[in-house]
């Protein structure tokens, strides 16, 4: 019987034939952390070793609160920079790089066949390029720095067979929300999610990153696309090391298979306060919004900014709305400058912020007051996440976000096409 991508990648790393359900100990290719490296360093110091075992595997990207919003964050950043110098960690990205989940793919760390663990729950994003990537906690990250190994249970796999074609104005974000709305926030708890089927190849690398990113909101351990020509072409000139691309075998064993036809999919929106409280945008159209956030590791890529710019072109942000735009990385920032998308957004009245997580996790840069409503292209709408516990977050695509910013209320973006 054949194997899934996850079984192959973990098996090769473990040096043994493995199947779903087995527990393996592997030496990961990369270990990611971000601003929480400050807390990880504190745990690492408890272990009684002076040096990290494999400095070249550690990747640290400052992205959560960049630049530092107050003295405490500044002290965290300082302690991280000192640790990076002390340990000789070559892969450190300071406050002018972007969100880790955009930086690792762009900088050629996220490669097919690799095992990447990260102290961030959206680490599964790198499955977009065929890596096995999963989130871990701080203590575990500290121990992995010290030992260069981690235990992992090989997950069962849920395959989602994509067929048909999405209509204009509908995107990967709408598809993710639809799946989570239909099947619940724990639809893939502990599992791998494979995005496959005849339409999988149609997805751009950006759209794949959105899908793999949102697999975290399905509870997945990892989410991925089998790497195809499109993925390999995107990696040309980026990959930092040789890699072997592996894909699931046609006769691999899946725990479940979901058929998903993209024809007729409508723009979707997750309503407060859970990601699986999903409705068609049309069902909540007209709800006034105070703030719109376009960016984050889910939807801050060039194609996302361009989808928003296409709607903002020749229009203005509604006077009762404030719009925050955050390019996911400096590379995206530069591309959007060149393409003209940023000029359109600025002319429309959007506020452009430094590449990073922004207000998504509720620490700085545009938090919500009591009773305020935010429409965001991010991935979580939990109560209080972006500010006051009695504020509301709706999650949708960049096109829906832009359309709603123009009208001042939740709006189906197809009205602008």
């Amino acid at each position, binding site marked *: 019987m054949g194997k899934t991508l996850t079984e192959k990648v973990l098996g090769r790393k473990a040096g043994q034939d493995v199947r779903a359900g087995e*527990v393996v100990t592997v030496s990961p290719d990369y270990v990611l952390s971000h*601003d*929480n490296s*400050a*807390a990880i360093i*504190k*745990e690492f110091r*408890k*272990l*009684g*070793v002076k040096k990290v075992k494999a400095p070249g595997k550690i990747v640290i990207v400052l992205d*959560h*609160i960049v630049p530092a919003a107050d003295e*405490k*964050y500044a002290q*965290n950043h300082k302690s991280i920079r000192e640790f990076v110098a002390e340990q000789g960690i070559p892969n450190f990205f300071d406050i002018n790089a972007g969100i880790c989940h955009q930086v690792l793919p762009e900088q050629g760390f996220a490669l097919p066949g690799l095992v990447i663990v990260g*102290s*961030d*729950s959206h680490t599964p994003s790198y499955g977009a390029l065929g890596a096995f990537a999963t*989130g*871990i*906690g*701080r*203590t*575990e990250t*500290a*121990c992995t720095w*010290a*030992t260069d190994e981690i*235990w992992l*249970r090989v997950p069962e796999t849920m395959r989602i067979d994509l067929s048909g074609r999405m209509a204009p104005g509908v995107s990967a974000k709408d598809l993710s929300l639809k799946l989570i709305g239909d099947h619940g*926030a*724990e639809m893939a*708890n*502990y599992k791998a999610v494979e995005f496959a089927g005849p339409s999988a190849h149609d997805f751009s690398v950006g759209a794949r990153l959105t899908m793999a990113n949102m697999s975290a909101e399905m*509870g997945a*351990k990892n989410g991925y696309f089998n790497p195809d020509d499109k993925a390999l072409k995107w990696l040309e000139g980026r990959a930092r090391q040789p890699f072997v691309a592996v894909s699931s075998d046609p006769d691999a064993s899946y725990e479940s298979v979901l058929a998903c036809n993209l024809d007729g999919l409508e723009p979707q929106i997750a309503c407060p306060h*859970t990601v*699986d409280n999903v409705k068609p945008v049309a069902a909540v159209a007209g709800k006034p919004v105070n703030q719109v956030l376009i960016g984050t590791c889910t939807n801050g890529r060039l194609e996302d900014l361009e989808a928003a710019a296409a709607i903002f072109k020749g229009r203005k942000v509604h006077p009762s709305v404030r719009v925050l735009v955050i390019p996911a990385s400096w590379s995206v920032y530069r591309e959007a400058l060149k393409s003209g998308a940023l000029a359109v957004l600025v002319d429309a009245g959007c506020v452009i912020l430094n590449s990073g997580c922004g207000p998504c*996790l*509720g*620490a700085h840069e545009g*938090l919500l007051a009591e009773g305020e409503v935010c429409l965001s292209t991010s991935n*979580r709408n*939990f*109560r*209080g*996440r972006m500010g006051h*516990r009695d504020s509301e977050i709706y999650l949708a695509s960049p096109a829906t976000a832009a359309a709603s910013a123009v009208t001042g209320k939740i709006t189906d973006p197809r009205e602008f096409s």
Partner: protein
Amino acid sequence: MSHGIVWKYGDNVNTDVIFPGRYTYQIMAPEEMARHAMEDLDPGFAATVKPGDVIVAGKNFGCGSSREQAAACLKAAGVQAVVAKSFARIYFRNAINLGLAVLQSDEAAERLETGDPIDIDLARGEIRSAKGTFHFLPLPASVIGIIEAGGLIEYTKRKLEEEQE
């Protein structure tokens, strides 16, 4: 065997309501983390929870971010265990790595309510209450070593010491 009172919550209790993001990137002592435990779900929890109390919840407890404080703040608040129908995977790992017992039992999660006194016997895999005795799924063998060592830091420390000898 230890005794405690139940605090009952629903499905999908997420890490943002267990430990809000506005505190996540501040490095805090455990006692301070405990003061913010469950702040955005049950603002009265932190002030009234007693050592040994138990959180009982539905499906997917701890979903959301990888923040370890969502497990650490409950442990610091004195919570001895979380009993749920299921746990989000990163939360499950984090809890074990910090030595917070995470126990899966559909029946206990259905039957127990806020205020119920219960006893938990980790060794026998039992939760005892006036409503009956409930059994929880045994923890995977791979994590028992970590729990026996008192958490992942201690476990790893010992392993590194053995390697050096």
